[in-house]
């Protein structure tokens, strides 16, 4: 298995690919279908209830699984007595750390090298035992009847205290997870010396939990020695890989299917322990097993955005030139090495032109559930620090915040080796067009109000350090004898509209209706390889590949038609299911009438994802603007409106693109305003708000209805043959910082720790003598 710690989304190293760069087709000129506003091709299934998500599935003879989890923050399991549970009604299989089973006791992934049932439970929610029974109610009855004995151990649940000498050790190596990571360029001391203003501030973002609407879960079924898993996942091939490696099976004996899935946000990129537990229970019971985690379990054990502590020192000249940035960050991926500081410094390193930068990142163990990638790992946290600092610097030198950013827009990726240029950067356009759409200057100049409710506006910029996509990826486009089309791709549609975008790409090239394109996807048994849908790389990976496959099919069709019509291939085009000669449209011939196609019954086009350009960087950029009203009596913040300008290359589907942007803003509002994992650090170390009542997601009443999406629709033909970059993650990066800056503009109070809750805001206003 590949190491997923820091590179969760893609394969390391070079991979074979075709076509080679010099054989790539011309970029699209004007498009007919790509870029339009198009409802989803699978909308019917999603609104009618006929879409079967993995947790919806019922199979004949299917059992239900449930997991006993460690109730303590840190404990050693000394005994597990399952005898009573085994005798209970409906119970068909029981597993625990003390069940003789190789798979239950060997490390279950290279990612987190813990045993499936590890008697040393380093976090609340670690797996202890599992049951399969006829109904979920009976399974939970049996879980409750398991007698597990624990030796409770001292715990540490705050990374800010975990490196103190007397802190309980989470891992034998101590509580620092690996070496501190250093980065530097230029001379930071010299940079600060030439600055007119130097500011320094500490920031913190709280741990967030993904909590996708569909809980993590799967159905596992054995047919002899072959395993089929229906998994709620972002990447069926990642799951296949993890399950096969852990159970010692050939990949060909593990089929993973994930047609629909109810959200992941990075937490469903690989197989979970629950996947393996379901497979082992199913094996033991010789019946299919559905294992869906409870909502509470999803808070404990299947990932989070790590808490981040950041100190940022920045120097700027009076003319707005950034001279130096120094950044020290710590974070915690929980009890294992799970990316606690993943990409935490990238915005500081790369968003603005700055010759002198030094960063230092330290990952720290605590007794809490392991992190997983969470929508733009590290980036919203770093943005919270950097973009508030930019706001403060602008004020200190008397410059407009947008102008300060425009003064420092880079054209190269300074943080990468060799300082490569960007294939395209729309950052300047995001700032300028976003500000124009928002009415920034006027809104900024308007008074904040005389009453207790203060109005303010704020903004923030951002980039996602990745979002270029890349190989490997292979797609098939099949043209049936009547000219209708099947698209076969491995990628999951995690709700971003992937299927719809890809049907539009096929339609663009083959002249068919997108709704008429049948799609097979996300099934290791029937599709070619695709990496997981994450990292904002699905559209830039899949759409060029789908286009290449469609072009291959088109080439074959036109070749057939040219022979039959006695015309040159170059004189033919595909339109509305017909081959149309450019010179004489009246001679158009329906695809179904092509003799060659009728004889073959099917034309299959194959597309591979070509390589990304060498020595260049491809990144999406963003700028978001918002207006808030702060009630200085209560600390309540009403978010009035948002304008989001994004450069993600070509806009593939205006409707789903906008939806991604609004969703990113909503999730950013969660980070900035409402979300925090609360661990009872003083007494039990347990997570005290492991439900949606106490852990607050933004609701319909917490987000503004007035959101505006301003796409900087500039295709990036150098990046790939679709000209598209990713949008999913950049959409959430600047949001929280923009809100903090707007709150500051309204009140003069800076909230440096998320979330900007009424309690925190009232306290800050009172401390500053600005409460009403």
């Amino acid at each position, binding site marked *: 298995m590949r190491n997923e710690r820091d590179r969760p989304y893609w394969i390391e190293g070079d991979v074979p690919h075709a076509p080679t760069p010099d054989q790539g087709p011309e970029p699209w000129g004007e498009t007919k279908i790509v870029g339009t506003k198009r*409802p989803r091709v699978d*909308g019917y299934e999603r*609104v*009618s*209830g006929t*879409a079967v*998500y993995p947790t*919806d599935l*019922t199979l*004949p003879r299917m059992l239900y699984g*449930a*997991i006993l989890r*460690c*109730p303590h923050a840190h404990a050693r399991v000394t005994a597990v007595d399952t005898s009573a549970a085994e005798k209970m*009604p*409906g119970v068909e299989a029981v597993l625990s750390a003390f069940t003789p089973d190789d798979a239950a006791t060997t490390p279950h992934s290279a990612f987190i090298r813990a045993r499936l049932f590890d008697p040393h439970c380093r976090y609340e*929610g670690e797996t*202890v035992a599992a049951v399969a*029974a006829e*109904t*979920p*109610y009976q399974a*939970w009855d049996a*879980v*409750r009847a398991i007698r597990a004995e624990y030796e409770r151990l001292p715990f540490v649940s705050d990374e800010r205290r975990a490196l103190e000498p007397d802190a309980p050790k989470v891992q034998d190596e101590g509580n620092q997870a690996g070496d501190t990571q250093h980065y530097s360029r230029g001379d930071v001391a010299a940079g600060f010396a030439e600055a007119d203003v130097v500011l320094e501030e500490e920031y913190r973002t709280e741990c967030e939990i993904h909590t*996708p*609407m*569909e*809980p993590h879960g799967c159905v596992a079924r054995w047919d002899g020695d072959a395993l089929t898993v229906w998994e709620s996942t972002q990447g069926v091939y990642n799951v296949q890989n993890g399950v096969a490696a852990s159970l010692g099976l050939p990949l060909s004996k593990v089929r993973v299917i994930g047609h*629909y899935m*109810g*959200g992941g946000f990075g937490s469903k990129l690989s197989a979970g322990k629950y996947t393996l537990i379901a497979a082992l229970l199913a094996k033991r019971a010789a019946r299919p097993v559905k294992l869906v985690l*409870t*909502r*509470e*379990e999803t808070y*404990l054990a299947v990932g989070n955005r790590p808490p981040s502590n950041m100190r940022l020192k920045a120097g700027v000249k009076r003319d707005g030139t950034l001279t130096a940035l120094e950044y020290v960050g710590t974070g915690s991926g929980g009890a294992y090495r799970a990316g606690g500081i993943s990409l935490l410094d990238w915005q500081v390193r790369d968003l603005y032109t700055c010759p002198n930068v030094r960063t230092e990142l330290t990952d720290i163990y605590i007794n809490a559930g392991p992190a997983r990638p969470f929508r733009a790992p590290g980036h919203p946290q770093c943005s919270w620090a950097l973009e508030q600092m930019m706001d403060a610097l602008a004020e200190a030198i008397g410059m407009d915040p947008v102008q300060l950013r425009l003064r420092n827009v880079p054209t190269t990726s300074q943080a990468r080796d060799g300082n490569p240029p960007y294939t395209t950067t729309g950052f300047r356009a995001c700032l300028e067009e976003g500000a124009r759409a928002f009415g920034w200057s006027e809104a900024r100049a308007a008074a904040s109000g005389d009453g207790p409710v203060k109005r303010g506006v704020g903004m923030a910029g951002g980039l996602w350090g990745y979002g270029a996509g890349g190989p490997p990826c292979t797609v098939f486009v099949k043209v049936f004898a009547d000219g209708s089309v099947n698209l076969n791709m491995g990628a999951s549609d*995690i*709700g971003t509209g992937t299927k719809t975008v890809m049907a539009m790409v096929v339609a663009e090239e083959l002249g068919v209706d997108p709704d008429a394109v049948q799609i097979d996807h996300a099934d290791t048994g029937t599709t070619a390889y695709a990496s997981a849908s994450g990292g904002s790389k699905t559209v830039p990976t899949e759409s060029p590949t789908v286009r290449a496959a469609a072009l291959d099919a088109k080439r074959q069709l036109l070749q057939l038609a040219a022979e039959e019509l006695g015309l040159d291939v170059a004189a033919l085009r595909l339109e509305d299911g017909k081959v149309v000669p450019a010179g004489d449209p009246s001679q158009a011939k329906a695809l179904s009438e092509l003799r060659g196609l009728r004889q073959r019954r099917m034309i299959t086009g194959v597309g591979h994802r070509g390589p990304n350009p060498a020595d260049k960087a491809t990144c999406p950029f963003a700028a978001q603007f918002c207006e808030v009203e702060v009630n200085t009596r209560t600390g309540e913040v009403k978010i009035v409106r948002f304008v989001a300008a994004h450069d993600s290359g070509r806009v593939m589907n205006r*409707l789903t693109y*906008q939806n*991604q942007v*609004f*969703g990113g*803003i*909503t*999730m950013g509002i969660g980070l900035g305003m*409402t979300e925090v994992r609360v661990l009872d650090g003083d007494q039990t170390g347990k997570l005290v708000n*492991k*439900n*949606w009542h106490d852990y*607050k*997601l*933004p*609701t*319909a*009443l*917490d987000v503004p*209805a007035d959101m505006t999406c301003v796409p900087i629709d500039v295709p990036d033909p150098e990046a790939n043959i679709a000209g598209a970059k990713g949008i999913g993650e950049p959409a959430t990066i600047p949001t929280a910082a923009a809100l903090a800056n707007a709150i500051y503009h309204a009140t003069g109070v800076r909230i440096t720790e998320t979330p900007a809750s*009424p309690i925190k805001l009232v306290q800050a206003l009172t401390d500053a003598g600005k409460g009403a």
Partner: protein
Amino acid sequence: MPKRTASTFARDDLPASAAGATGAPHHDIPSREPPGETRELAHRPGRQSEGLTGVVGRLRVAQAEQTIPLGQRHESLAECQVDAAPPAEGERLSKVTLVINGRQRQLQVEPRWSLAYVLRERLGLSGTKVGCDRGECGACTVLIDGVPRYACMTLAVELEGKPITTVEGLMRGEELGPTQQAFVEEDAYQCGYCTCGQIMAAEGLLRATPTPSLDEIRKQMSGNLCRCGAYPHIFAAVGRAAELRKGGAS
């Protein structure tokens, strides 16, 4: 209080966060409620992150009188249309007639089974989703007597004879109903897992208030979480659904 409700909120004390279960062991029949006692439950408009949860709506708790003695279970299995897996020894089942999307379904259920469980796992009506199983997210929203309710917080045995509408019941044959159609047109979802619940909440709103204001839409839809954050499109879809329902398209 019925055990169902009490145990729901005691769940955090359990090592396994035993949601999906009711806390009542299999042999423990829920205590009988006096006829007519009400309890709070279900759909919760008015949720806001820092605000209090406004619980509206009350439903009469039907008495679980239909519990069938163990010895009679096998005779009554004939009436159980979907109970493919026979219940284990020692369970007590109750007979209940549910009126789902206009059709009567006679079922044998454990008294602790939620309506969401029965719909999804026993009847195959998987358009009703479960996101939290404790009345927080609204993914399981159905209409009971035309009013949006959380099916995860409603016991199947409570619903003898009550008309229940699920998202499947909004279809006209294989055609989408107007509220469903509006959600497609406005792209009012991403992953789609909360969508059927959102649609049922919108349907309930529009049946009661055919022309809702934006504020009414936001309030009524606030009992349904969408982690993907499609809210602005959801607001637009509810407005569009109101148009479609009036415009003869429905």
